[in-house]
């Protein structure tokens, strides 16, 4: 009761706190974006990997990047290029170990949630409480740091953001480490696997850049809904 009262009081009085019309909806919506983004990155890796099967000289990888980065929550548009992720084209990825990659990807996006503190809408930003709730929601949806492969943590990111220090670059290093240590079929030296390790570096970096922008836009959208509602309501 007291917590709710204080929170309500803070919302009314706090000039620099970003309010949402429905905080639960906003946090659910943002967590969905993060999870969908993770799924998209996971599927994109598979689609591009399948390209090496028989379309290496038919499909320009730049086109695949354009499609992925134009809609970072949906990778199925890559089907238009004739790419398919099935048991044959991605046979090396058909292992329970590799399936751990999806929760890992979502986790590596989740630990960067504190960067939302930098998103400002009318000089207001999300509170630590809101950010922590968002992180917990994403973790509850299945994100997991399997075998502590990802060295970054939520608290570290939060600390760096608070201090205004730059974050380490978003790379595919942990992904490669995981493959070498846990997925032998992909660790083998083959044309396809070398291609995978090569494009993963570029894809992770470019994807995160677009993903971050998309997530920031969503936060502003949720906040804008609130402000427009306030204006209408007088």
């Amino acid at each position, binding site marked *: 009761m007291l917590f709710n009262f204080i929170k309500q009081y803070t919302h009314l009085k706090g000039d620099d706190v970003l309010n949402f019309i429905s905080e639960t909806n906003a946090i659910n919506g943002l967590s969905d974006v993060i999870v969908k983004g993770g799924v998209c990155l996971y599927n994109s890796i598979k689609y591009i990997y399948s390209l090496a099967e*028989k379309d290496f000289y038919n*499909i320009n990888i730049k*086109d695949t990047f354009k499609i992925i980065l134009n*809609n970072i929550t949906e990778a199925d548009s890559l089907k238009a*290029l*004739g790419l398919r992720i099935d048991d044959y084209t991605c046979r090396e990825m058909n292992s329970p170990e590799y399936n751990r990659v999806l929760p890992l990807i979502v986790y590596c996006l989740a630990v960067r949630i504190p960067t939302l503190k930098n998103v400002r809408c009318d000089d207001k930003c999300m509170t630590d409480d809101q950010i922590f709730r968002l992180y917990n929601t994403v973790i509850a949806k299945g994100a997991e740091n399997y075998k502590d492969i990802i060295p970054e943590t939520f608290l570290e990111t939060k600390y760096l953001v608070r201090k205004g220090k730059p974050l380490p670059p978003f790379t595919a290093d942990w992904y490669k480490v995981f493959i070498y240590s846990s997925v032998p079929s992909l660790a083998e030296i083959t044309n396809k696997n070398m291609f995978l390790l090569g494009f993963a570096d570029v894809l992770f970096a470019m994807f995160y850049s677009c993903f971050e922008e998309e997530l920031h836009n969503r936060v502003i959208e949720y906040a804008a809904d609130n402000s427009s509602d306030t204006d209408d309501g007088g």
Partner: protein
Amino acid sequence: MNFKNIRFAVRDNTNIYKLELAKSLLYFTEFDFTYFWEQCIEAGKTARKTGRLPQNHVTTAKSIISKAHPYIESLIASDFSEIVTDCIIEYICMSDRITSDELWTRCISSKNPYENAIFKRISEYKANRAINQWNNIVRIKEYASNKLAFIYDHDENGSSLKRESIRARRDYFDLTASVSANELRLPCGRLPSATFCNAASLPNSTFVISKVSKAVYKRFSDVFASVPDESLPENRDYTYTKDKLAMDAYGYVKGMPRPTDIEMKFALEAFLETPEEVYLPDSFKAVIDLEFNLMLKEDITIRRCKSCSRYFAADTDSIYCDRVNSSGKTCRRLHEESLKEITPNPAEATLSGAENPDSAYGAFSQAYVPPWRLVPPPNKGVSVPAEMEKQGQKLYNTLYKRLGKGMSENDFKEWSQYLSHMKRNVKTGDATVGQLAEFLSYSEELAEAVKAAGKIYKTAENLTSNTSQYIQESFDDTMNRPVASVIKANETHEMTSAGIDFKAEDFTGEALPENTAEPAAEKIKPFTPESFASLSDAMLRERSEKDAGVSSVPVNKKYIEIKEPNWKRMTREEAYAMQERDLNADSDDEE
């Protein structure tokens, strides 16, 4: 002429198709794609509004284009299935002046099925799984027309072509294309080609002759049961391992004895249903080249008709085709009739037995040079001036916008066809630039009339209930009347606006007020190109215009009275002497 038929098969299809040599090629080179294009544009416009392609337009357009060539028909469900989308993509890229790449980027985040269809199609181009087939058809048509002209157009002297020279021309044309491909460093081994085999050797023969295939499978089922799965990736290069693959397959059935007589009889019946020879072209260009090659092999000669300038497959030495033209007669028939008109009465002619032709005009022409042969040939075609092209396009757009609002679809189609024929005739020399100008000025008046009719429709909605009823009735009438009547109604409406009383019958065009400037029927007169009763009339007319110094673009026509020619037979020497005199006179004039 009886055309020889060949059979061909295409990939991803178990049917075998017929191709009429020369006929299908000539038909394709002359095929008018205007209606197909219009259907596609209409489909695109509707899709932009509704978000999806209208299936009725797509089906109509596909049925139109499949008639252009048997190869298109054979692949209309696979390679050419997205031809309408291809055409729309081409149109958007042309009208917005963007590349297909830019259009693709626009449609990545597609908002409706229409944009998604465009995105998917361009993605197929990008992944080398398809090409813009509409663009391809247009380019292939140009290729076929150019090749036809290169090989079969007669020399300046008009001498008939020998088989060797046709072959040399064809080879030269093909070699030039090969040299170009080589210089571009294209993989020449992968360029279009057609293979020849029997139906049982087709890549999909197992499914083409399925009855016998089943019987064979039954016979060797024990052997096939133990065969390992040797499926190989399709994208691998098998150029050097083809024999190995074939022999590996044959290895399992090499000990096969001949089947029983009953089985053989059953197989015979099935094989007789399939053609003995089947061609397997791998692309549209390959079919076109195949036709050219087989036409030469079968000694089918193509000539350009001296009357209509269109190509035709000639079975005799005639230089006139058997196409029925606007007069309702074939060019050959017209030519024969014109010959009869200028030929003296055989009873009066004192031809010796050797000179007297039996039936063929070819023999006749060798013995006797009629005066019309000395008349210079008709003018060569000229290209349509750019401003006229522009004017024509402008008129097209103006009238197209007013479809259904002052001009019916059929009228518009008729008009647009007339315009395109007129332009073609100018290019081939069958019509003059003046005649085209005359038609365009007539079309300008027509466009004005159509605009006026459209205005009536708009204003009628705004008038009071009584008046609008009258006007609406009149408009309905107007839409069913010729353009001239539309003008009348328009003028009457203008007077109404100016405060002049009118009656209901005014709108019927029966009773016009006295102060009407001029009868509308005189304002617009239907366009009628010049016509001549015979070839001699046309020649005389042209000559008399030249003598009188009249320009080729008639402004005010003065019809010259031409007397019936009084032909006298002259000897060959006289004829040549006359020709020389004319030539000398011309050279004197030039000096």
